[in-house]
């Protein structure tokens, strides 16, 4: 691959991702409206599509206010971290054969590393705001994300065991005969739950719980800084959906009447829809329930899954 091709892939991926993140504003509101039996935004443009434009313009023109009691530098740094870490994670996603920004042989670990750095945006944003609600949100976010990172990593290790590689391309290729959802259903469900907690989406949006904490860690943010948290969340949904597709649902593999890239996009959008459906249908658990559920149920289950997978893999190899 030449240097120019690399640059084109990077630009293309960035362009598509940022547009998806913005477009999800409309997708989410229309889908939520559909499931709640109402219309949703339908005035501006065809099907209300221009709400994306209107929302973005509104965010750009809002006063970009930094509270005088805030820690200025860290306050500005925090929203940049969330978008940066999520966009960096997309580096290893194989969209189609040959369309991947960096085909690292430690791809999966790189994803875990970047998602673990994403915690800083919540923690620092909440702390730098110097506001008790923001601080409470940040404390919740930190413990939630550290806890669920563990299960996220462990749930993917079953797939790594079956593939024998951390390389995302190799993981997709290994699903040629059978998707990993068949052999690793437990891993998939735990990854899904941990992914929701990691992107702090409803029902696990406990760090921002608007009914108790106003808006949690980003209560003090306005304008495009708030917009960055917003985009980071949508990018996070896209990332987790893309990871689920690549790890458990065969990535770009599919019947040949559609190109590989279309299969990948189709499957990813299906899971984005599932994320939004969860938001529309489930209530928020209490904070201690979430943490208890993680350590007392998910951890033993994921460890058992790992051990059984390892035992079966060894047995199949003829040990």
């Amino acid at each position: 691959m030449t240097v120019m091709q690399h640059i084109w892939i990077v630009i293309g991926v960035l362009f598509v991702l940022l547009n998806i993140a913005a477009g999800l504003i409309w997708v989410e509101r229309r889908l939520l409206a559909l499931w709640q039996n109402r219309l949703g935004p339908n005035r501006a443009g065809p099907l209300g599509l221009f709400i994306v434009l209107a929302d973005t313009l509104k965010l750009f023109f809002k006063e970009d206010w930094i509270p005088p009691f805030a820690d200025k530098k860290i306050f500005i740094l925090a929203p940049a971290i969330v978008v940066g870490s999520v966009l960096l994670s997309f580096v290893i996603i194989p969209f189609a054969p040959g369309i991947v920004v960096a085909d690292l042989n430690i791809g999966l670990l790189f994803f875990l590393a970047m998602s673990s750095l994403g915690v800083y945006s919540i923690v620092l944003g909440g702390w730098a705001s110097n506001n008790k609600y923001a601080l409470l949100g940040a404390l919740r976010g930190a413990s939630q994300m550290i806890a669920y990172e563990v299960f996220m990593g462990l749930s993917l290790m079953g797939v790594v065991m079956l593939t024998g590689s951390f390389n995302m391309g190799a993981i997709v290729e290994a699903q040629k005969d059978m998707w990993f959802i068949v052999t690793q259903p437990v891993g998939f469900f735990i990854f899904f739950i941990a992914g929701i907690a990691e992107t702090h989406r409803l029902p696990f949006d406990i760090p921002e719980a608007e009914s108790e904490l106003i808006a949690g860690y980003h209560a003090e943010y306005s304008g495009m800084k708030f917009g960055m948290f917003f985009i980071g969340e949508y990018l996070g949904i896209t990332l987790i959906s893309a990871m689920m597709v690549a790890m458990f649902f065969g990535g770009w593999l599919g019947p040949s009447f559609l190109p590989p890239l279309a299969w990948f996009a189709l499957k990813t959008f299906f899971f984005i829809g599932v994320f939004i459906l969860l938001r529309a249908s489930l209530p928020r658990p209490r904070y201690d329930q979430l943490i208890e559920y993680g350590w007392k149920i998910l951890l033993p289950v994921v460890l058992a899954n790992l051990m059984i997978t390892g035992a079966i893999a060894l047995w199949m190899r003829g040990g």
Partner: protein
Amino acid sequence: MNLLFYISSFVAVAATIMAISRFHPVHALLYLVVSFLAAAMIFLSLGTPFIAVLEVIVYAGAIIVLFIFVVMMLNLGKDTALQEKNWLRPKVWAGPSLLVLILLVEMIVLLLNAQNAIMHVAVVDPRKVSLSLFGEYIIALELVGFLLMAGIVGAAHIGKQKKKILHRFLKEETMARVEI
């Protein structure tokens, strides 16, 4: 690769110095994060991507977050910064730094005179790391496991709350008795 190594080493040293000299605990911790990321880059440039990523996941992504978590909970603000300022007077650090500087000069002289100063870059993949961990160094690994287990048991013991089940009338009675 060589250039990458030197750049990230420089960043690591600079960030560590900043981490020591900041007065505010959170700022210091953030520089420490940068230092860890730079250390990960050093590992990467030396051909061990696995260790590099583990450094980011474990140190930068988990341990420092817990540090910041604790700092946030204790709500350390201006008072601690002042205290730190008092501790970090030149009188305190001038002597040790001078001695360390002598050591540094010695080390640089030794390094410049060394015969085998060529950096060996060999890519070590995750499989090799795990094989040596669970083969050659299995006893060390088990011992580390013991240590962590002891830590967890200790933390559970310290964190345990004594359950006090008192009937409300009983409690009132004891309170009254104390008052008498």
